[in-house]
């Protein structure tokens, strides 16, 4: 999963506490790219959901199973990949958490968060079953309060 353009790659055990570790690395990397706090918060929330799903649903909290997280820049896009060693699932068969009947469900909003806070998310599944979600967000938009972060190297 480590691509040529990868800037930071992190492999963690399937412990819930490690979600924060991923977010710390992500936020520190975004800070160096001069990404604003609001954008950084949004990306961190989305990536946290992806890692939580990988740990809970993918690896079923098996401490021997790993979650891999890859941070890269593709032009002005931040690309985050989160991969687990689970059995996969069918993302087209999920209930809509915003449907009136589902509004009071305690779960089922993680992918909605990812979709809302990123420009795109894509699932792919390994022959052996593992899930990889690729989250993408454009960073290049010039922000009024600070110089644009275009063409900066990550990390």
């Amino acid at each position, binding site marked *: 999963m480590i691509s040529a353009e990868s800037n930071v790659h992190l492999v963690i055990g399937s412990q819930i506490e490690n979600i924060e570790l991923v977010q710390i690395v992500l936020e520190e990397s975004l800070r160096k790219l001069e990404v604003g706090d609001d954008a950084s918060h949004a990306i961190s929330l989305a990536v946290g959901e992806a890692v939580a799903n990988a740990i809970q649903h993918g690896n079923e909290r098996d401490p021997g199973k790993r979650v891999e997280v890859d941070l890269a820049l593709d032009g002005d896009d931040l690309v985050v990949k989160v991969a687990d060693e689970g059995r996969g699932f069918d993302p087209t068969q999920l209930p809509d958490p915003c449907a009136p009947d589902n509004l009071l469900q305690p779960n089922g*909003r993680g992918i909605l*968060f990812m979709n809302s806070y990123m420009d795109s998310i894509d699932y792919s599944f390994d022959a052996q079953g593992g899930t990889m979600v690729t989250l993408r967000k454009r960073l290049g938009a010039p922000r009024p309060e600070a110089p644009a972060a275009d063409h900066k190297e990550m990390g």
Partner: protein
Amino acid sequence: MKIETRDVGEVRILEPSGKITIGVGDVALREAVHDAVQSGSKKILVDLSDTTTMDSSAIGELVSAYTTVTNRGGQLKLLNLPPKVADILQITQLITVFEVYDNEQEAIASF
């Protein structure tokens, strides 16, 4: 994350501060609501002024709390949504479920 609790008349006010996310404060939120319900409180106001972020797990706890309180004939309302939290309630359409106030007196009077 930590949660401060205070009572104004019959209203139990919960004030979680910081991040409420999976493994960080989601359980504390559940317990604070549970305690309120156990102690017979039927009027619960969650003041989110100092909550910096909530993930889907924290939102799930808030919804469960709402359901628990409602099922026991009580009411759970929200006070002071910071922009990031307001965003999240918008995205999840939960803004249509919760009664939200931006003034404590009004919120208390509404129960």
